[in-house]
């Protein structure tokens, strides 16, 4: 297995070196489930799925290390066998994503504001750089401040700085108890409640609102979950319905995601309802708000900014780019980092930011 992985890696390095020589752009692809995500898809496809396998998993160390092409399902199954999980609940769109794609995209599910984002769980990476060098950043330990935290920089980089060939992630034990409550509440009251409960130490691990209902997930020690349930009230969902709801939310499978145009707004968690027309789907206890089919004359980005946040055009015609535009000083830093990590601009050109 090791020899095979080495052979695959050698082949990847060869492809990168060739691209480096010919200035050929490469389009990095794991499982291809996030082709819709990013600014543009250009370059020759470089398949990374073949570089797969869990390299190391020691449950008592709370760390798993896997090659980039390892399917998410394989990792989650290995963790589940030891009562552990990826607490950032990465979303999967359709087929089984690869762990490299999960980290390169850096997207997180409903637990994001409670347990942490994808980048909070990244401990180390191996990177195949523009000039064909294998670099190792971070490691397999929880605390590590040797050098800049390039591993976390790579999380969400959409592959523009190089190929993440291997990643080490912190994992957590599954909560001992979990319970989901549904309450009939208007959106504003739901967001207010999510914040108030969090400030009181209620062990929330999910706070969502849709079509007049608030969903609250409680996770933790059984007595804590029990007393939180009594405090919050509402209707307790059976395990299967709860699981189905959070999975649909996490993987963007609710009916809203059938819409022609979808905007994803990241705002401060306690922000009051936005002045956008239509009712949102709210996640992350108020910090994530999805809007479908806003009227053409509504400037979603300006409204997101007014609320202290940013807007990402998830689907539909993107006005001036999918991602929220960066201030000039930040865009300049992106260009400089790209020039230094990938001087010939071969990795996923333009996917994160036009021209970068």
């Amino acid at each position, binding site marked *: 297995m090791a020899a095979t992985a080495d052979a695959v890696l050698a082949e990847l390095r060869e492809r990168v070196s060739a691209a480096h020589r010919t200035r050929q752009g490469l389009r990095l692809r794991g499982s291809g489930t996030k082709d819709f995500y990013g600014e543009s898809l250009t370059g020759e496809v470089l398949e990374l799925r073949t570089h797969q396998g869990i390299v190391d998993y020691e449950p008592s160390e709370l760390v798993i290390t896997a090659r980039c092409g390892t399917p998410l399902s394989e990792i989650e199954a290995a963790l589940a066998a030891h009562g552990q999980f990826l607490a950032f609940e990465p979303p999967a769109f359709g087929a089984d994503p690869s762990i490299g794609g999960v980290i390169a995209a850096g997207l997180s599910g409903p637990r994001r504001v409670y347990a942490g984002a994808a980048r909070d769980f990244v401990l180390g990476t191996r990177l195949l750089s523009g000039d064909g060098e294998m670099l190792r950043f971070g490691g397999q330990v929880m605390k590590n401040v040797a050098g800049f935290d390039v591993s976390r920089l790579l999380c969400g980089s959409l592959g523009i700085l190089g190929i993440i060939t291997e990643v080490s992630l912190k994992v957590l034990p599954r909560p001992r108890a979990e319970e989901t409550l549904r309450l009939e509440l208007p959106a504003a009251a739901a967001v207010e409640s999510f914040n108030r409960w969090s400030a009181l130490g209620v062990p929330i691990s999910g706070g969502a609102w849709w079509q007049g209902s608030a969903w609250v997930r409680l996770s933790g020690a059984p007595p804590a979950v029990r007393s939180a349930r009594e405090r919050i009230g509402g209707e307790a969902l059976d395990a299967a319905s709860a699981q189905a709801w959070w999975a649909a939310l996490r993987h963007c499978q609710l009916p809203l995601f059938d819409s022609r145009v979808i905007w994803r707004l990241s705002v401060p968690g306690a922000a009051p309802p936005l002045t956008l027309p239509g009712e949102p789907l709210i996640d992350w206890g108020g910090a994530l708000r999805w809007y479908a089919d806003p009227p053409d004359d509504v400037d979603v980005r300006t409204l997101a900014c007014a609320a202290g946040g940013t807007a990402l055009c998830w689907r539909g015609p993107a006005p001036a780019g999918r991602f929220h535009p960066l201030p000039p000083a930040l*865009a300049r830093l992106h260009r400089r980092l790209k020039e230094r990590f990938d001087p010939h601009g071969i990795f996923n050109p333009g996917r994160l930011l036009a021209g970068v």
Partner: protein
Amino acid sequence: MAEADIAAALRKFLPEDCVLSREEERRPYECDALTAFRQLPGLVVLPHTEQQLLEVLLTCSRLGVPVVARGAGTGLSGGSTPHAQGVLLSCARLNRILEIDPHARIARLEPGVPNLRVSEAAAEHGLYYAPDPSSQVACSIGGNVAENSGGVHCLKYGLTVHNVLGVRGYTMEGDLLELGGRAPDGPGLDLLALTIGSEGLLMIVTEVTVKLIPRPPCAQLVMASFADVHSAGTAVAAVIATGIIPAALEMMDRQATAAVEPFARAGYDLTAAAILLVESDGTPEEVADQVREIVHVLRTAGASTLRVSGSEAERLRWWSGRKNAFPAAGRLSPDYYCMDGTIPRRHVGEVLQAIERMETRYALRCMNVFHAGDGNLHPVILFDANDHDSWERAERFGAEILELCVQLGGTITGEHGVGVEKLNSMCVQFSPAERAAFAAVKEAFDPAGLLNPGKVIPTLARCAEYGRMRVHHGALPHADLPRF
């Protein structure tokens, strides 16, 4: 450029009290808490406002003057060691708490606010700021951001990087950067994560937004004794393997308990080879459940005695010994050198035994305190700085421990940073290409290389020289030459 000219340029826009140029005024800034490295700064500048700080950067940038930022000076790796021809930029006067929003559970702070003051200010709302480095009474939030500071509770609550939502600040060129913020997951690369722990090499932070969390209503501490360090190490893994994430999981070896007990009077078992301190926090019911489970796991793992704190006073007394480990070292020895390697937990017994052998080889004593839950070791090497040979041995002893950490899949620094202290060890942990990548990051933020130059990233020449020295094993050539 002469210091007097730089001072004159700065005094054009700064009040008189902001620029310290006389030697006796600069002297207190010559080192941080790692006192083995000293350098008198060219000038010390203490702005009162963000605007003044920006103008200092613009002026120094224009004049090509190096700038070293300093928070409270509690750093343990010489990260704020001054530059002889540069400006030492103290953020101590930027110490206002700008906002506390209890509903959104955030605090917005200037960089000079001491860590503990954040929690004190949030206490009336039942909230606190989780990262608690041992120096939290004094250390500043800006310094915590620079070092990605941890503390005894980061196993459960995370490091600075997990608890800072956003920073505002300036590059050396004077560009305003607002990274992260109250809205999670903004567009572009995660430059916030990159900046945290960048040891003042990338930008100067002028505002930090942190996450506040509810103070758990109850906490209890379990203290367990072990007859050998190996079984203590196994017990640590056993606790984690059962699915418990304790609020803290600390280990002290016999040398450490013996050092602190005479004056902390914590009540430690001095016959044990190692003791574990395992804390549980939450609601009273949660804590009762978890403590029962922890006691069971530790007993099964071979603990010889087990005690559970019966009162808050007792819990704090048991902690006081651990938190006073460094002052205790100061009582035992004229000087001490605290290391900060991290290893995968399963190797703890092996590392402690190796350190014991090194004690004989280097003829120096070493006591071990250890954030066992996250594998972060703090061997404290006792030496005498007045005896140059003793310091040289301490340095080599420390370097060897770090090399062992790297060999075992760990790292040379878990929370104290590289600074100037671990430049040589960086040569061991990272390849030339990896160090070049760090240099590339530095160049992207600071093309002129004026912010905290000479820290964190060793030059190729330095690593080559260090490689040659290591080949000779033992006696360093030219031991009389200053190496830092």
